């Protein structure tokens, strides 16, 4: 099993080398056969990684404990689906899974472009083949997924309890998909630079890829936050951990890229900036991998072996130097066809949004790396506290929220004062009216929250009016109801209205973050059976506290009845704690009663002599973050939905001009 797996990975390495060489030869128009061979090489790479992953998967399912990555991350008892997901619990396994996704996407990109971009594709294949080769190299010589153990254990040590969680099944693959997908637009961008084919052709081909990778990253981040919230013991969803930051950073620059690309498509500006952004986004995915797997930053995500660090650092350096070299030598091909004409234009707003997003990404990188840097240079061990990130992200987030509303309402090139007055009248009124209403609620306790909420209303009305105006235009054409007018404008302008729905999701997420971060009520108390305690108007009564032995663990569990201030029954919390027999790990089961306005979160660390300590959080509006994530996903799907085979209706004016010419 081990030998076969290693052999397949070595074959992958050889195939990758061949693919790169064949693609480079195949650049010449006359060497079509070589180009075709390189395409087949790409498909073969996918096949080989699929076989390799399949081999490890069979070993995991059969419980072949002679393999290190089976013995360390699986055991006889765990459910079959966790045996499958144990693939990405180990470092080597997760890198191999990564390579599988990378080659899968590469194969799709090669297939869908088989009749297009003949001049770009050889370079694209060379870059993607080299990346696949990099993984084959690392998996063969730095950290093998098929490494064997000297003494074969009776049973595996099992999967850590925090990983035995439904999010383990969805969250890592989502993030991998997003992370890895960035490689495709990156490869196309670099190929466009190499071949000097810098028109918008490659940008158009990459639209869907950009959107997809950015969506997967976003969903992966939200799922990760939910995972943390439901299975860790700090009662929150985001602590600016280096690994969380590693996922957030490419999403921030990716968000900037998605917006600035529109400026290039529409106005032929920001060409250099876009190249830099896609390069930085891709570099950040590698940097994030490096950061979390080299051990240079301490994180709640601990990783095992640290052998892959130097390889990833090498890849990062080569990527950055190569990319910058290409951009600098091609500067003359990247001239803007227009210049910025007004500070109040769509393109200017996109530029501000880009600067803020990239600025935020820069600051987060700085805060994440600062401890490693000071330790390297001064030997002093320090950490950057979460307040730093919170205080920096909050104002930038609020300005971005405003731009989200303002951007789509401002015309390209130049806005006239009259237009501005007309378009922002209602949103401004709505914002002003909402202020006294919010002052009546608990939100008055925190002015940043007030500001956020008022501008959330402003932005919501801005977005709503965009929908309204579109519907009005369609309805004025006649023959449709308002509802079908809505359906028609969305289906005919998917990218635009999908984008607005995504914006709406972001607004909801920002509201949830602002309120839940600012108005947490925390309580701690100890209860014996039958005793009660009160936190933030909620009364908690311990109905039962039990300790029992299960098949896998010593389990402590509680049933705590919750009543609100008026004495109504809200629900029953059942937090638990498992001390596993097979490993020294503790399985925490946090209990949550969710709701649209507040969550009640409870953690029980122990039970001694019939007394259990409890930690309780009343977190307002956390569920808005998950709801916003769902809206975000819906919007992204609308924006990316295939256009469908439309009948080719000739545009009358163009046809007339054509006839005249």
């Amino acid at each position, binding site marked *: *099993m081990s030998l076969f797996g290693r052999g397949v990975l070595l074959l992958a390495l050889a195939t990758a080398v061949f693919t790169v060489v064949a693609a480079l030869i195949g650049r010449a128009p006359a060497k079509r056969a070589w180009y075709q061979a390189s395409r087949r090489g790409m498909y073969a790479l996918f096949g080989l990684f699929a076989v390799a992953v399949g081999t490890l998967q069979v070993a995991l399912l059969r419980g072949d404990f002679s393999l290190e990555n089976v013995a360390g991350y699986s055991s006889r008892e765990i459910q079959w689906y966790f045996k499958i997901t144990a693939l990405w619990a180990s470092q080597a396994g997760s890198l191999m899974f990564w390579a599988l996704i990378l080659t899968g996407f590469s194969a799709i990109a090669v297939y869908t472009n088989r009749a297009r*971009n003949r001049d770009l594709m050889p370079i694209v294949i060379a870059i993607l083949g080299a990346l696949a080769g990099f993984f084959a190299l690392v998996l063969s010589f730095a950290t093998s997924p098929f490494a064997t153990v000297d003494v074969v254990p009776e049973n595996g040590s099992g999967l850590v309890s925090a990983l035995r969680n439904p999010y383990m099944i969805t969250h890592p693959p989502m993030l991998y998909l997003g992370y890895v997908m960035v490689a495709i637009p990156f490869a196309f961008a670099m190929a466009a630079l190499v071949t000097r084919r810098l028109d918008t052709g490659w940008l158009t081909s990459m639209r869907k890829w950009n959107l997809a990778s950015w969506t997967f990253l976003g969903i992966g981040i939200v799922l990760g936050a939910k995972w943390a919230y439901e299975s860790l013991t700090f009662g929150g969803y985001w602590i600016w951990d280096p690994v969380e930051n590693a996922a957030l950073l490419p999403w921030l620059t990716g968000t900037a890229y998605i917006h600035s690309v529109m400026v290039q498509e529409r106005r032929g500006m920001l060409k250099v900036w876009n190249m830099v952004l896609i390069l930085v986004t891709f570099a950040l995915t590698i940097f994030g991998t490096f950061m979390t797997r080299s051990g240079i930053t301490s994180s709640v995500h601990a990783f095992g072996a640290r052998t892959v660090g130097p390889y990833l650092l090498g890849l990062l350096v080569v990527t950055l130097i190569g990319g910058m070299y290409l951009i600098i030598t091609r500067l003359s091909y990247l001239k803007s066809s227009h210049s910025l004409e007004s500070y109040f234009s769509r393109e200017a707003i996109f530029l501000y949004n880009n600067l803020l997003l990239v600025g935020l990404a820069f600051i987060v990188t700085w805060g994440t790396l600062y401890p490693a840097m000071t330790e390297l240079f001064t030997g002093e061990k320090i950490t950057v506290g979460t307040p730093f990130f919170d205080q920096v992200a909050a104002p930038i987030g609020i300005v971005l929220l405003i731009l989200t509303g303002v951007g789509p309402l401002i015309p390209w090139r130049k806005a006239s004062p009259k237009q501005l007055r007309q378009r922002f009248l209602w949103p401004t009124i709505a914002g002003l009216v909402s202020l006294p209403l919010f002052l009546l609620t608990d939100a008055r306790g925190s002015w940043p929250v007030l500001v956020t909420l008022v501008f959330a209303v402003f932005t919501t009305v801005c977005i709503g009016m965009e929908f309204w105006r579109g519907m009005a235009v369609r309805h004025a054409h006649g023959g449709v109801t308002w509802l079908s007018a809505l359906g028609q404008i969305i289906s005919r302008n998917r990218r635009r209205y999908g984008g607005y729905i995504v914006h709406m999701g972001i607004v909801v997420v920002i509201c949830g973050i602002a309120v839940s971060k600012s108005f947490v009520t925390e309580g701690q108390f100890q209860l014996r059976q039958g005793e009660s305690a009160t936190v933030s108007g909620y009364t908690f009564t311990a109905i039962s506290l039990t300790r029992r032995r299960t098949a896998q663990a010593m389990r402590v569990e509680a049933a705590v009845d919750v009543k609100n201030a008026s004495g109504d029954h809200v629900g029953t919390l059942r937090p638990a704690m498992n001390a596993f027999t097979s490993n020294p790990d503790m399985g925490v089961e946090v209990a949550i009663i969710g709701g649209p306005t507040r969550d009640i979160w409870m953690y029980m660390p122990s039970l001694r002599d019939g007394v259990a300590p409890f930690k309780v959080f009343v977190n307002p509006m956390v569920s808005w973050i998950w709801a916003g994530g769902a809206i975000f996903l819906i919007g992204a799907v609308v924006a990316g939905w295939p256009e469908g085979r439309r009948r080719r209706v000739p545009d009358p004016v163009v046809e007339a001009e*054509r006839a005249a010419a």
Partner: protein
Amino acid sequence: MIADVVLIALLALALVVGVSWPLIAGGHEVVEVAVDPARVALDDEITASLQAIKELQFDHQAGSLSDDDFQRMERAERANAARLIRRRSELDGDS
């Protein structure tokens, strides 16, 4: 052990033949796609251009573009589209 080695060898053989088939087959290889890439690229550009005109019209009707801007930008985009379509007809005429 032996089985593993044999399997790997078979896989390697299949790989070499499969991947380098276009090179082995040489001139006999049928060109997979008979479409001219330049023509495909042109089609893309025309679609993008027509889409841009539609978006301009929509923006104008929804009030996101002033009349002056709309007229200037739309005229430019239409000229562009017409030029692309002419080039496509020339290509089609040649073949």
